[in-house]
């Protein structure tokens, strides 16, 4: 974490102690999270968990009851215009001026964000909107409205993209397309993405790191690389394998499934395999479990 504005902060987004109460309702409570530069951060939660309220506070649409939000080191509360300048966003439903054409909607955004003229053609091409440029936004399908909203979010070449349920209204091909675009932006331009969703599998496929919000609090955070995901193993001797993993890797979150396999959480597949085989136990199944996110999510949120 950085303290001075002149330093280049490590985090694209830093949220500390963020709280928002609506009367008796505690929408967000003491939320701490950070999005690193060049990272895609998935923000998972059930409906009403506090995702959108958090995003609205980050964008300066609503004021926090307490806490601090920094975007590339700039404080949103004290200098909103400057802090949100590197941000491109899509908040909840995609909306546009219905009586204006796609091109006019984008031109307004281009002018108001001070973006160069060529940025218009770039986003039109990127989201396949060429054939709709002269069509009124009110006549677009839901999917194309979503594409227009994403194009608007990206027109200023943001360094941090904040998307609230971006896959809404998109067909499967559209979802894949958006995922590809976001990854390309991350890989080529190094932009950071903060994306909220209640779609677990989609988030798992897109994000580098996932934070789970429940009742306004960040209750879990996990990396979507090898670390911290679950690995299912099939072994000749479950008891010995469990002992070896605990002793050698210090992992204690090991679960025996109904079929007799073990689900180990918190270690890499390679390390687990080495510990088991090195201890003389035969290994006949080794499978990272992406779907474990679902059970983990349900366990954390109480399956309510």
């Amino acid at each position, binding site marked *: 974490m950085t303290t001075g504005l002149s330093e280049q902060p490590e985090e694209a987004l830093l949220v500390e102690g963020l709280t928002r109460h609506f009367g008796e309702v505690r929408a967000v409570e003491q939320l701490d999270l950070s999005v690193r530069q060049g990272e895609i951060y998935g923000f998972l939660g059930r409906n009403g968990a506090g995702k959108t309220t958090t995003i609205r506070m980050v964008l300066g649409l609503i004021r926090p009851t307490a806490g601090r939000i920094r975007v590339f080191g700039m404080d949103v509360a004290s200098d909103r215009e400057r802090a949100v*300048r590197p941000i491109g966003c899509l908040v909840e439903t995609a909306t546009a001026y219905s009586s204006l054409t796609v091109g006019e909607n984008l031109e307004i955004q281009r002018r108001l964000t001070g973006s160069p003229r060529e940025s218009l053609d770039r986003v039109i091409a990127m989201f396949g909107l060429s054939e709709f440029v002269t069509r009124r936004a009110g006549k677009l399908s839901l999917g194309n409205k979503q594409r227009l909203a994403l194009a608007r979010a990206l027109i200023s070449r943001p360094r941090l993209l904040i998307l609230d349920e971006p896959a809404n209204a998109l067909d499967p091909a559209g979802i894949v397309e958006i995922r590809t675009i976001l990854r390309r932006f991350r890989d080529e331009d190094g932009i950071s993405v903060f994306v909220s969703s209640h779609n677990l599998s989609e988030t798992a496929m897109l994000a580098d790191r996932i934070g789970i919000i429940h009742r306004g609090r960040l209750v879990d955070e996990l990396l979507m690389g090898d670390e911290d995901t679950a690995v299912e193993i099939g072994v000749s001797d479950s008891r010995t394998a469990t002992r070896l993993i605990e002793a050698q890797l210090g992992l204690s979150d090991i679960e025996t499934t109904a079929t007799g396999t073990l689900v180990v959480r918190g270690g890499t597949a390679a390390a687990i395999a080495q510990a088991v085989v090195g201890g003389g136990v035969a290994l006949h199944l080794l499978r990272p479990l992406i779907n474990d996110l679902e059970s983990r999510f349900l366990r954390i949120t109480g399956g309510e």
Partner: protein
Amino acid sequence: MFLSNLYAELLKLRRSRISWILPLAFGFGPVVAALFMLILLHPEAGQRLGLIAAKARLTAATGDWPAYLSMIGQMMGIGGVVIIGFVGTYIFGREYTEGTAKNLLTLPIRRGSIVAAKFTVCAIWYAAIGVWIYAEAFLLGSLLGMPGYTPELARAALLLGVKLIPEAILLVTAPAWIAVASKGLLGPFGFIVATIMLGSALGATGWGPWFPWTIVPLDSGMAGPDAALPGLSAKIVLVGTCIAGWYLTWRTFDRSDNLQ
């Protein structure tokens, strides 16, 4: 950045149907005034029109240019405060009904600049409507061939318009604030209805020069040719209303929660 905001607001207005529906609706005023004059000029034909003819005789005693332009002036005074209310309501309220307020408020620009651009467009739009009404009125009046036209009369009528249009524009900020505070169109529409009703009541009890929405109609000569026009205090009330409305609009736009 103000110019970019202004460009955006003008484009939004130009592309919306309301930009021509509102002047078209208000444009019926001179048509009705011209119809009344036609009835008064041709009473034998007017008798066949029954109630309309009676109304025409009640509104103006004679079918001539002075009576006609007096009606146009009063129409600008009374109708103007309603039309400017619609203008402010639409320019600000549509952002909430279309769900675009959140897009506007997440832009890296000062919200005061957005508010200023919107009020500028309100003023331009209403001034254009005012010019259109006077142009239409003079065109219809010429077609009727009424007696009593003098260049001085036309000049006085236009000067009245030059006074009434800016006075009405000063009243745009209050319904705009209600639109932003209520995040939609219904709140300010209710406010407009309330000002009409309250204005009628206060106008009848002598408090008209202190109520902003009665001052402009009174200034248009609604109370009759012998009645005194609202004085300096009334102008201060109008300017004060404008400043208060502007401040509240900006403050609400900038500070209130946008949960839409």
